[in-house]
């Protein structure tokens, strides 16, 4: 293993953060650099990640790298919607592995309150194939709801099981001071909440948020000089699926996640049972259930049973999203992957406080862009 994460930071995730995008990114950058003894001058390149439809600023990489004091170093923008910062880490990995740079910063951000709610509503419909699917009034919850419906039909997954994902998320949100929604939710509350896109109800869906994250990566030699607790990238997988629903061949799982997971496990020379703690992309409750199956934490169709048996709580077979996940933290699109990685880095460093999984040695991050379009799985080791 030759590429390490030496710093991982994030801002609180919140609605209406009241500061500008450059200031948001500065907060996360400072927080990540404080894990190291590096100065901004030692960062050789920055990769700035967000979903551009929420940005007022054109080409945000220039603005942000200037504000962080990184000019004249190389900087550019990376985007794969909700998995943009995992894509950034993938690019950072290859920059370091190739020897082009020693140390790289990946900064993910999103200020979803930058644009008005009617502008948000207008953009929501254009996430699908705009020629053949958007004209029917689709949006993200509807896309995942169609997976939920098919999963329920094929595997007998229930609305109760979906709700139990949110109940777990709510429990752990109380232990995460940076989460947007810090509140325990009962099963009854989840089941009685208003429908967004059947069978998904309000608590089955994550919420828009403002926030930023930052991951500092470096090579083996520098890692040993800068920190006592480097976290190594052991496996990194990425894949895609069709944007159009009509071309999908699997309606009960995300093929891009299955493929990215296979690549990451192979590269890390491990099996799903070796993972001690995981962060999965729970933009909707059904997404977490499918992630259990797609990553091999259980057999296909048994994701509902896994949460039913509480196996993804701390103390269970495989603790998942013990920081509250997207469902409680909120989902500032470009910042989300970096936040997931930060959680796992802290777990492997033994710095996760009340949510520490004992002796965690291997962690996994599953970060998905769009409705199963961009799949990213990253395996980290201490």
């Amino acid at each position, binding site marked *: 293993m030759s590429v390490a994460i030496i710093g991982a930071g994030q801002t609180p995730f919140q609605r209406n953060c009241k500061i500008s995008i450059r200031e948001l990114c500065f907060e996360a950058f400072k927080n990540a650099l404080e894990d190291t003894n590096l100065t901004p001058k030692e960062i050789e390149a920055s990769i700035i990640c967000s979903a551009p439809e929420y940005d007022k600023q054109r080409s945000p990489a220039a603005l942000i790298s200037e504000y962080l004091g990184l000019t004249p170093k190389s900087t550019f923008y990376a985007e794969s919607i909700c998995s943009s910062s995992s894509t950034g880490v993938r690019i950072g990995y290859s920059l370091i592995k190739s020897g082009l740079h020693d140390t790289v910063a990946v900064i993910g951000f999103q200020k979803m309150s930058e644009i008005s709610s*009617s502008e948000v*509503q*207008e953009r*929501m*419909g*254009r996430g699908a194939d*705009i*020629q*053949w*699917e*958007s*004209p*029917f*009034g*689709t*949006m993200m*919850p*509807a896309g995942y*709801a*169609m*997976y*939920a*419906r*098919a999963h329920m*039909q094929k595997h007998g997954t229930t609305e109760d099981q979906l709700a139990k994902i949110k109940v777990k998320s709510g429990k752990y949100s109380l232990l995460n001071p940076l989460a947007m929604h810090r509140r325990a939710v009962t099963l009854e509350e989840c089941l009685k909440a*208003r*429908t*967004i*896109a*059947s*069978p*998904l109800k309000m608590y089955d869906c994550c919420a828009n948020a403002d926030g930023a994250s930052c991951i500092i990566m470096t090579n083996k030699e520098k890692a040993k000089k800068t920190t006592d607790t480097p976290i190594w990238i052991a496996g990194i997988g990425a894949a895609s699926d069709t944007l*159009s*629903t*009509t*071309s*999908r061949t699997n*309606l009960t799982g995300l093929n891009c996640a299955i493929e990215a997971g296979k690549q990451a496990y192979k590269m890390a020379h491990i099996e799903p049972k070796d993972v001690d703690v995981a962060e999965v992309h729970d933009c909707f409750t059904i997404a977490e259930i499918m992630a259990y199956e797609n990553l091999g934490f259980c057999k296909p169709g048994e994701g509902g049973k896994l949460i039913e048996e509480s196996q993804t709580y701390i103390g269970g077979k495989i603790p998942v999203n013990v920081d509250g996940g997207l469902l409680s933290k909120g989902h500032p699109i470009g910042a989300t992957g970096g936040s997931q990685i930060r959680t796992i880095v802290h777990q492997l460093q033994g710095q996760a406080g009340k949510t520490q999984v004992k002796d965690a040695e291997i962690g996994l991050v599953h970060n998905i862009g769009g409705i199963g379009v961009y799949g990213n799985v990253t395996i980290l080791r201490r």
Partner: protein
Amino acid sequence: MTQVNFEKFGKISYVRETKVADFVKHLENGKIMATRCNKCGKLYFPPRADCPEDLSQDVTWEKLSGRCKLLTYTTAHFAPAGFEDALPYTIALAECEEGTKVYALLSKEIKENDISIGMDLQLTPLHLADGKITYELRKAQA
């Protein structure tokens, strides 16, 4: 394929120009058309003018029977801008008997309690306000 205006397709359309704009003309004539690659024989719906299998651009229009089965669905209670007046509406994915899939709304004549995965449906052209046109999935005639 001649270029005509595609903007008539759908309640709100985001694409004006496309090589397959003739789809709208056929739809106005009551026909739902797919394309078939003359080189490899693959059938495409939604239609496309360029075959990625063999890079051929030699495709022919071919009429679908419209007979299909429901694969999955959701009833939306929130909508993107411009669709709010239609709420609630049911978005469906169905498999055509020709093997291609179609993404469309389920006709409002089908009550939510009567929807079941696997049910037979008929893909049918539908005229909308302002001269626009689309297709929807209706109950199959016995």
